[in-house]
């Protein structure tokens, strides 16, 4: 019996909506766009934040990254035009960290040099990363073939290198790079291994996110070539010359980075203070900074929340507008069907029967709009991903939210017209033309 009632009510609702197809469609559009924008906005927001989080997570949540920064310029130049300014992290710093601070898993010194690599007649811009075998501990790179740098390489300052798979493709094309020699700055280095940047976790998109740990401003750099730190030290100068304001300045930097890995991410923040104290003691200038990915992660989570709230409220407003549109139309429908209401009342319909009838019509409209909005809202993010090259993630939560909100809007904005219909005087309604 209840089922019959439901069936009848729905059938009638569909019928009367179908009778005013254009009107129903236009009304539903409001909800469709509302729901669609809720889903799309949340998906874009989620995608952006996930991307940020992943690139931070790739830095490693148990890592601390100590970077060399140029110290603030001092006005103590003694007229000497050409001076060698030494600053930044040193090999000694790395040693001190490794030897004096407890709970350090590994401390990996990194030296970066922008260079060109050549093979046969091909050349590509690369970044030389001079480091030690434990680099693999702190970086998400994954060995594809061959081996990574070894202690022996380090000890004997061997001219060997490990290359990125992208470098391999660009430089060696169809040749197998393993065992071949690549020429960098007059020296030859034998390729002993090929690595790839492992994606941490699943992402919905296949975008390249630039070099992993050793990122920095890598203009035109294809990828990294890893060589033993000792080899880098003996073969490449630590001096860089630059011209600015007519004067030449020469800078000397030993290490660009030291990456410290601690045993658990609870120690990360504490460790930063310890390292800061230590380095502060050694350095007389503020020529380093400590980046803590964990902190960045937390900041990113905050940003993400704000981002989602902002996008969500914009979308919610459009849903609200859609709801008002629905209410408007339902009021028109009610006054148009005054006579029908009178007839039904005369034939024994109670007020609540009339409310149910009109409310179910509104709900039908909004839920239809909700479903179509969800479909459309699921398509738009993938278009954004495809054409806008932005990652998007549709979460189940946003679908449920959008659907629930559209249903809530149907009830909220349908209730008033339905009550108005129910409260009409049956005699007046019957007389209505």
């Amino acid at each position, binding site marked *: *019996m209840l089922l019959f009632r439901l069936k009848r009510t729905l059938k009638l609702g569909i019928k009367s909506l179908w009778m005013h197809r254009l009107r129903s469609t236009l009304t539903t559009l409001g909800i469709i766009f509302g729901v669609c924008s809720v889903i799309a906005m949340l998906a874009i927001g989620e995608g952006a934040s996930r991307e940020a989080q992943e690139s931070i997570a790739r830095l490693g949540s148990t890592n601390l990254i100590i970077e060399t920064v140029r110290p603030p310029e001092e006005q103590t130049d003694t007229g000497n035009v050409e001076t060698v300014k030494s600053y930044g992290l040193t090999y000694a710093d790395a040693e001190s960290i490794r030897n004096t601070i407890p709970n350090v898993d590994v401390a990996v010194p990194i030296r970066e040099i922008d260079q060109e690599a050549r093979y046969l007649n091909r050349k590509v811009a690369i970044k030389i990363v001079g480091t030690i075998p434990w680099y693999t501990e702190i970086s998400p790179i994954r060995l594809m073939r061959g081996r990574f740098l070894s202690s022996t390489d380090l000890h004997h300052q061997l001219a060997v290198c490990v290359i990125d798979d992208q470098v391999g493709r660009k430089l060696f094309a169809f040749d197998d790079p393993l065992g071949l020699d690549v020429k960098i700055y007059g020296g030859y280095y034998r390729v002993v291994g090929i690595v790839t940047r492992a994606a941490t976790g699943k992402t919905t998109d296949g975008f390249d996110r630039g070099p992993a740990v050793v990122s920095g401003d890598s203009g035109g750099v294809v990828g990294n070539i890893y060589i033993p730190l000792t080899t880098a030290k003996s073969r490449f100068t630590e001096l860089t010359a630059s011209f600015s304001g007519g004067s030449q300045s020469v800078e000397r930097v030993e290490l660009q980075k030291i990456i410290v890995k601690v045993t658990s991410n609870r120690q990360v923040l504490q460790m930063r203070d310890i390292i800061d104290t230590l380095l502060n003691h050694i350095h007389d200038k503020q020529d380093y900074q400590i980046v803590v990915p964990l902190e960045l992660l937390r900041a990113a989570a905050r940003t993400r929340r704000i981002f989602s709230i902002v996008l969500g409220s914009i979308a919610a407003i459009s849903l609200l507008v859609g709801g008002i549109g629905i209410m408007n139309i339902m009021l028109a429908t009610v006054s148009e069907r005054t006579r*029908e209401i009178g007839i039904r*009342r005369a034939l024994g319909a109670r007020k609540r*029967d009339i409310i149910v009838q009109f409310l179910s019509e509104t709900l039908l409209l909004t839920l239809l709009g909700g479903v179509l909005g969800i479909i459309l809202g699921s398509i738009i993010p993938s278009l954004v991903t495809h054409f806008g090259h932005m990652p998007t993630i549709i979460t189940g939560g946003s679908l449920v939210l959008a659907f629930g909100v559209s249903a809530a809007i149907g009830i909220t904005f349908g209730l008033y017209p339905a009550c108005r219909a129910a409260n009409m005087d*049956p005699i007046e309604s019957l007389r209505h033309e």
Partner: protein
Amino acid sequence: MAVVHIEKLCKTYQLGLVQLSALCDVDLEIEQGRYIAVMGPSGSGKSTLLNLLGCLDRPTSGRYRLSGEDVSTLDDDQLSLIRGKRIGFIFQSYNLIGQLNVIENIELPMFYQGFSEQASARRAGELATMVGLGDRLKHKPSELSGGQQQRVAIARALANDPVMILADEPTGNLDSASGAEILSVLNALHQQGKTLIIVTHDTEIAARAQRIIHLLDGRVEREIHNGA
């Protein structure tokens, strides 16, 4: 037992500052199975009486017993229930619902009384056949002639087997042939023992009734009993 028992029934409307008395001190008693005609010029209170009898309205004062039950003080839901169960309405302009077909229109009163799908479909089919529309069950009202539409309305009025049928100028919108058909259907209902109250201007229709009630200015002017 009297189907309708009315004592000192009054209905006044407040029109701005003016009080308009539509019905005043009407006493009426209608026995089961009677055929009653209500006549009178427009504004005499016919419609008001019919609305009160049909429980669409509540009297300002006085008492109305329907089958012994005092309905003058019931609330809206209870009145709806009484309209649905005990009263069948026939209107001048048929008042079928345009979106519904013949069978669905007839089912409507049963729908609100919670009949099952099968039971209401079966009964609606029987009623449609009884009024001679057994072959037009799926037609929309707009596809039927006026006479046919009014017959659907009669079938609808009978759906819940009411104690009383109220007809407001049932032939008013029909040509004389269709009107005669409708009257013969109503006559047949009377033969079956239904209580019938018809509001009409037409003296010929009134002449078929057992009792004619003339209203004037909200009062019963005179009553004529036709033989019986």
